[in-house]
Structure formats: structure tokens, C-alpha cells
């Protein structure tokens, strides 16, 4: 047994289902207790899907423990009839794997043609695989299953490998790349797995080049396609303005497109110019650290170092299998590469180095806030805030602009910082009057005491005051106002517990 408080990666079945359900016209069935089904909530909530996601849980129950069969065939028949997928991918959670049910056997027993969809058992190991490895392997397996020999497209074309549902700003990332590809006259043949249908996969060999958005998600698929069709892939990561330009130069080389066309694609890219403006000069004195998925960490670190001239304290990843890859990629950028899946070790590194800005996952945002270190979220594990309604890519030229904005939003702007140093913040600088006594932060104990005094005609008895203290702090002020309004309207001079409850009954809160 191993004590786990918090993990960067989800279990393998989540990786399988994230990949499988991201494809178009493919449904994923997970054999698991219903308790393992929480990943569908993230799909429904984060992606704001107004339809049922193509993901079902074939629930294990007490009856299963007593020996009842999985009844998987029935579920497959129902999904086939209701959703008409072209393929149903079956996997199981670690719990289901312990039971060693013969799911393959159940599938094999089904009559040919009984369901129209192809049935496919994912080969991942429910305990040994991680979310990332399960995702990458399942993506490759499904691609390999459908890929057929096909002629190369007439015009240059690419497959984008890596984006998925629940991916980090993935739809915007694809859109950002598309804009550059349009300018260069490059077609998008398939986006894998996000939305790619079996038809898209059958002709995946049309593409001239494969483009990964993340090495750790795409590598097995890239290798497979190179072996099968000889399709090369771009090695550079499209992070930052210079980075995207390097990436497009490599791509143009492979697509036999003159590199001077890149200027048209770069129209609107501002990061390098922003970096030259006086507002950004102070960035040279800033120390930063980056932790997250390997590709995001490597890509971001290079932008921060080479395009914004910031100092890198450390770069790290929680994807242990990709530690060496990251070390190689950032060797020229930093002296410290942190490869760990223990969030507390990352927190200790933040505490030790105290960077001016941390770039990390939502967990680093939590940890950094404890040390008063501002943090920009650039990697999963994500939060619903990382699924914005608007357009916020991280890669390509638009992504470079967004990274610039993110740096600005996360730290105090250079020029602003300079002015504050000189003149002091409003109200507290050397020209300001002394702050009047008795000003307290809202929500503090002092504020409560002042509020009591200001109630004037009203008295809170200690029991009621204590009960009010148990109301969550963010609604406490409203609750107090409601109770006092109620009491005044009824000429009640002393607020006790019963008055408080009566008030709640009448006005809520």
C-alpha cells in the first residue's frame, strides 16, 4: 500500500476513455463499479457538453461479486442501437481487473453482425499504465486499427496528433495552428483523437507530415505512422513566437513550401515586439519556474528564457516516464530539472526558490499561493477555469500572444511596478495622508465587532453571535444584514438564536 493524498495523473481507465471518447463515432465502455464513473462528470461539466458523452460505465454491483456475469453484450447492443457508433472500445478499471472477468470471452460469444459497431478491447494495463501512457497507447491502437494505405494528398497536408476532450485548451490550440496552416496553404487532414472519425483515420496516410501538440501524448502514434507510411513528424514544439517560427520552418521544409511565406502566418504575432517594449524590460530581473506536462514545461521554459529573457529556477514534470526527454530538452535553459509525482516535493521547490512567477498546474497554483508566489496555470491537472468560453490558445502565434498576456496578468507590470516603487501605492505612498484609524478589512473579526457596534439599536446575544460565526464567511455579511432587517421590522431589540432562525425562515440566507 502507498499513501496517496493527491495525484497529478488519473488512473489508466480514464486515459483510455479520454482518448477513445474523443474520436468521432467511437463509443467507450468502461467495466467498473459506478463509483469509478466520476470521469464522465468532468466531461459533462468541463466541456459543457449538451449531449451525453460517448462514454458509458457497465456497472459492477453486489450481484457481480456473487458471480453474476457482466452482461456486457446487452450494454453493447443498446449502445449500438442508440448511438450507432462505428466502434465501441471496451476497457476496465483497476477494480474490475481484479475480478478477472472474461470480458473478451463475452464479446467473442456475440454473434457476428449482432452489433454493427466494431468491438475493440483496449490493451492497456489498468494498474501499471498511467493516464498518460494509457491515452497515448489507446490513441495509437485506434489509429492503427483503421489506417489503410492511401495516396498522399495533392496539396501539403498534416495530421495534428494530441488534442482531445478534456485536453488543455486543445480546441483553441488546433484553431491557432489552423490559422497558420491556412496562411501557408497546408491542409489539416485529421486531428487525432479530437473529433477524428474512422473515415478520417482510414485516410490518415494522406498527410505529408504529422504535427504533435504534445510529445508525451503523440509519440506512439507518430512512430506508428512513420513506420507504416513513412510520414515524418515535426520535432520542434510550437510554443512562443520564435518557437512557432522554428516549428513552421521545419514544417515548411517537410512540405516543400518556401519559408518566406511564414511572414504572412506570423502577422499579428506580438510577443517578441512586446518583449522589446519598455514595459517588459523589468522581466529580465524576474526569476520563474515551470512544472507540468513535459511538452508544456519544455515549451514554456524556452519562451520564458529565450523570448522574454527571464531566469529559470527549475523546470519539472510529473510524468516520470518522460523525465529524460525533458532533461534533454531544457538542459541549456536551467540547472535544475525536477521529476517527481509528489506535489509536496514541488511545493518545497517553490518554497526554496521563491520564483517571481510560477508556471504550473492548478496544484502549483494552490501551493504557490501559500507562499504568496503568483502562479499562471499552463498545464493539467486543470480546473473549469481552463475551459474558457473564449479563445485562449497556448501554442502557435496566437498562443504566444496569450502567453505574453498571461505573464502580464500574473505579475505586476514592469512600468507599473517602477511607478509604484517611486510613488508608492495609492493611499499609502509618501504623498498620501495617513490612513484613518479603525479601517478594517471586510470579513475580519474587527469588522464584525464594528458591525455589531453599528447595529446600534440591536443587540446580538453571544449564542446568536456564535451561530452567525458558523455561517460560511462568504454569506455571513448578508445573513447578518437579513437577520437585523428582520429584527428591526418586528421591533426586536435582542437577537438570539431563535430570532436568527426565524429570520432565516422568512428571508433565507
Amino acid at each position, binding site marked *: 500500500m502507498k499513501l496517496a493524498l493527491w495525484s497529478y495523473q488519473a488512473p489508466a481507465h480514464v486515459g483510455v476513455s479520454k482518448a477513445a471518447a474523443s474520436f468521432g463515432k467511437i463509443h467507450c465502455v468502461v467495466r467498473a463499479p459506478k463509483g469509478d464513473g466520476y470521469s464522465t462528470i468532468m466531461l459533462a461539466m468541463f466541456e459543457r*457538453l449538451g449531449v451525453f458523452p460517448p462514454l458509458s460505465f457497465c456497472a459492477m454491483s453486489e450481484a457481480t461479486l456473487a458471480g453474476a456475469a457482466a452482461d456486457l453484450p446487452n450494454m453493447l447492443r443498446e449502445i449500438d442501437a442508440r448511438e450507432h457508433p462505428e466502434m465501441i472500445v471496451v476497457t476496465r478499471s483497476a477494480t474490475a481487473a481484479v475480478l478477472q472477468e472474461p470480458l473478451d470471452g463475452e464479446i467473442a460469444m456475440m454473434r457476428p453482425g449482432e452489433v454493427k459497431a466494431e468491438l475493440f478491447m483496449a490493451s492497456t494495463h489498468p494498474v501499471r499504465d498511467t493516464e498518460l501512457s494509457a491515452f497515448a497507447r489507446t490513441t495509437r491502437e485506434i489509429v492503427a486499427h483503421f489506417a489503410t494505405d492511401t495516396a498522399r494528398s495533392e496539396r501539403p497536408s498534416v495530421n495534428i496528433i494530441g488534442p482531445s476532450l478534456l485536453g488543455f485548451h486543445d480546441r483553441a490550440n488546433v484553431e491557432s495552428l489552423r490559422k497558420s496552416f491556412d496562411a501557408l496553404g497546408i491542409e489539416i487532414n485529421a486531428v487525432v483523437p479530437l473529433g477524428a472519425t474512422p473515415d478520417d483515420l482510414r485516410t490518415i496516410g494522406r498527410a505529408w507530415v504529422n504535427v504533435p501538440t504534445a510529445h508525451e501524448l503523440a509519440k506512439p502514434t507518430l512512430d506508428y505512422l512513420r513506420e507504416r507510411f513513412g510520414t515524418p513528424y515535426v520535432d520542434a514544439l510550437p510554443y512562443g513566437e520564435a518557437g512557432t517560427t522554428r516549428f513552421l520552418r521545419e514544417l515548411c521544409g517537410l512540405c516543400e513550401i518556401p519559408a518566406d511565406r511564414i511572414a504572412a502566418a506570423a502577422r499579428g504575432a506580438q510577443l517578441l515586439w512586446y518583449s522589446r517594449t519598455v514595459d517588459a524590460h523589468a522581466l529580465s530581473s524576474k526569476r520563474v519556474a515551470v512544472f507540468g506536462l513535459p511538452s508544456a514545461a519544455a515549451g514554456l521554459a524556452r519562451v520564458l528564457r529565450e523570448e522574454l529573457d527571464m531566469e529559470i529556477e527549475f523546470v519539472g514534470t510529473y510524468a516520470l516516464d518522460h523525465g529524460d526527454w525533458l532533461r534533454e530538452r531544457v538542459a541549456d535553459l536551467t540547472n535544475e530539472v525536477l521529476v517527481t509525482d509528489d506535489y509536496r516535493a514541488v511545493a518545497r521547490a517553490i518554497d526554496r526558490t521563491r520564483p517571481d512567477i510560477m508556471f504550473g498546474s492548478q496544484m502549483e497554483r494552490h501551493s504557490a499561493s501559500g507562499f504568496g508566489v503568483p502562479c499562471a496555470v499552463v498545464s493539467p491537472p486543470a480546473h473549469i477555469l481552463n475551459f474558457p468560453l473564449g479563445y485562449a490558445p497556448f501554442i502557435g502565434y496566437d498562443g504566444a500572444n496569450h502567453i505574453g498576456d498571461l505573464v502580464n496578468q500574473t505579475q505586476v507590470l514592469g512600468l507599473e511596478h517602477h511607478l509604484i516603487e517611486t510613488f508608492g501605492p495609492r493611499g499609502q505612498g509618501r504623498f498620501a495622508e495617513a490612513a484613518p484609524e479603525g479601517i478594517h478589512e471586510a470579513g475580519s473579526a474587527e469588522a464584525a465587532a464594528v458591525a455589531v457596534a453599528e447595529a446600534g439599536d440591536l443587540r446580538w446575544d453571544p449564542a446568536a453571535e456564535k451561530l452567525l460565526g458558523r455561517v460560511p464567511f462568504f454569506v455571513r455579511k448578508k445573513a447578518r444584514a437579513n437577520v437585523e432587517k428582520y429584527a428591526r421590522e418586528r421591533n426586536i431589540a435582542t437577537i438570539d438564536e431563535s430570532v436568527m432562525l426565524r429570520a432565516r*425562515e422568512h428571508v433565507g440566507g
Partner: protein
Amino acid sequence: MFEETPAVIERDDFCSLAPIGWLHHKMQDSFFLVVGTGSCQGFLQTALGVMIFAKPRFATAVLDEDDLGGADPLDGLRPIVAAIVAEHAPQAIFLASTCTPEILKMNVAGCAPPLEREFGVRVYPCRLDGFDPAYTQGEDHVLQSMIERSAPTDERNLVILGCLSPLEEAEIRLECAQMGLPEPAFLPGESALDVPALGPNTVLAAVHPYLFGAAAFAQRERGCAMHKSVFPYGPDGARAFYETLAAAFGKTVSYAEREAEAWAALANTIAPLRDKTIAFCSDAMLELPLARTLRAAGARVPLVGTPNVYKKFHAAELARLDGVEVLERPDRFALFARFTALAPDLVVANLNIANPLEGMGFAVKWSTELTFQPIHGFSGASTLFGMFATTLRRHEALAARRVRDGAPGAPINLDYFHLAGSNR
């Protein structure tokens, strides 16, 4: 779309580990140690993730291949419990067995006594699995494990069973004092060691409909008298709850006037609910009492899905649900087919399916909120009805504006993500 009843049922609620969220918050000196897989741990951090801001008082002992191979769980648990005791110094540890130990027939509960002896910390063994129970029933299992440690008594005492907020407890305390009843003890209390004495003269009143197991256990093992009332949701529920409590102590008290007064005070809040049709998906087991009080508030509730019905424990609720079709553990899609035919004004559903149901055109009240808002008693009624009324009002207002402007606000579907060939 979904005409036939499928043979395989998809469940839409959470794992019964979920109540750790409110239970560890209530019992500030507790620690919840879950013995399970990375998936258990993933669920806890997803569902209760915000609490990582503080030092979390819950964790998972993730089973590895040695454990799956039959290693003694006590050997694995010893160093983990030692670390927890050293870091958190809890008064009590809830040691939860989950799906995988159950499959392995691993004796997790059997580890509790030796761990308790070795570390000098009370260890309550409980089972919090994701097989059959409704997610709220995790609380039932935790409370049952606490009742097992209750001292016997012959005293005529009153025990309120179920995790409540201080506001809700305050109302019950005040009403009991008003009626001249003994001061109630609450299970759970603020300490995980607070287990009231129970005996044949104890009146045990469950306040949640999902506590059948703990209540039945107390009745069977300690001879407690079971409180037979509807649950204290809404003014009608609160009235019956208090009147029945008084009767259990040989007093006749009428809350008729109090109930009328409460409804009058709620007139504005419940006005939007009048004659509206509300249907429930099977979820937290709150469905029966909420359907009952929403009907008392003037809504129509023709169809209620619920995970488990306990005929005796829920008898008082069922008696007031005349004409309501109650479907026990219905299939998701079969239920939606019924909704489509019914065209309810509001559907109450778990977060899992709330957005897709909105996408199907229903107005949806997400149900999870109902398990953590203080909605019990007279004082909680405004909050309770307010949640339904607000959702209805908002949905109607937005729909009217969308119609006015000819902007339908179409739901995101999977085509939105099909980007291949978009620039061909």
C-alpha cells in the same frame, strides 16, 4: 429516442465515498483513511479537491500488486497509520474498505482493533463502496460504525441521527427545549469520539432518508425506539417531525399554527412553484421527502426516480406520496423517455447528467447542492424552496429572451470538436 427499457442500468450518482466531504468537515478531529485504488483517490480529489487548500484529513491507501497478491493488509496499513497519527494526531480514524478489498475479500475491518491498540487512536471500520449504495449512504455506513461503539444506557434520551449544520442543529435544540423534551444529542457531533449512549429508552430520530442501515442497527442491537415520521424537510415535514418527537415523550404538541405561519412567510418564495411539474432523477435518496414537500408547496410531482426505497423506514413519506409514481433504481435512458413524454417544467438531476439534460431541452436543478445546503426544518425551508424557484425563474426568463431575440443558445454537441479537413 429511448423507447425501450434497457437491460443494463447506468447509474448516475457518485461513489459512497462522497460523504467524507461533509463528515470530515463536521468531525474536526477525524481522519478518513480509504483503502482502495487510484480511482478512489482520484474521486476524492476531484469531488473534495478544494479542500487540499487546507491540510486534508482524508487520504487513500492505494493497493499495490503485493496487496492484490494477498499480502496481510495490516502490514501495509501500519506505517500509513503511523504517518497519519504523527502528522494529524486525529482522535479517531475511519478506516474505509472499498470495492477492491471487497472483491479480494481482504479483511480491512479486522485491522481496526489491532491498529487501535497499537496507536491508541480509535479506529472505526466502515465500508464505503461504489457498487450499489446511493452515494449519501456512505454516511449511513459511517454512522453505523460509530453506533457500534455507543455505550448502553437505560436513560430516556433523545438522539438525532444524521450530519447537520450548526444552524439546523440549533433549530432542533430550541424546539426540543420549547416542547420540554430532553436536550438532544447529535450523531455525528463535533468530535469523532462523541457517540451518545443508546438503549431501549432512547428515541432515535433520523433526519436524512438515507440512514436506514444505522437506524435499523441501533434498533436491532440497542433496542432504540425508531422515530416514525416524515423527515424534517419543509414546513409540513418539520411539523410532523416535531409533533412525532413530542408524542414519543408522551406529550401532545400541535405545530399546526406554526406550519401555517411558515407557509405564509414562504408565500413569495414558493409562488413560482405553484402548478409547476417537477420530476426527479434517481440520485441522493432525498427524492421522496423533497417530492412530498414540493407537492405541499403547490408543485406537481408525478414521477420520482430514487435509488433505494425502504418500505418501513420511508413509510410516512410514501403515505404522503399518493398518486406519485416512484421508480426504484430506474435506467437512465428509460427515465428520460418518460420525461420526454411528461414534459416537466423542472428536472432534478445529478451533475453527471445535468448539462446533457439541459441540452435535451429540460430545465435542470442540479441536485448535489441539496446535500450540502442547510435545508432542514422550518428555518431551512426558504433555502430549500428558493433553490427550486430560482432555477425555474431563471430558466423561464432566459428562454423568453432567447425566443425574443431569435438566438437559440444551441447546446455544444460533438460536431463542435470535429476539426479535421476544416481548411480543406
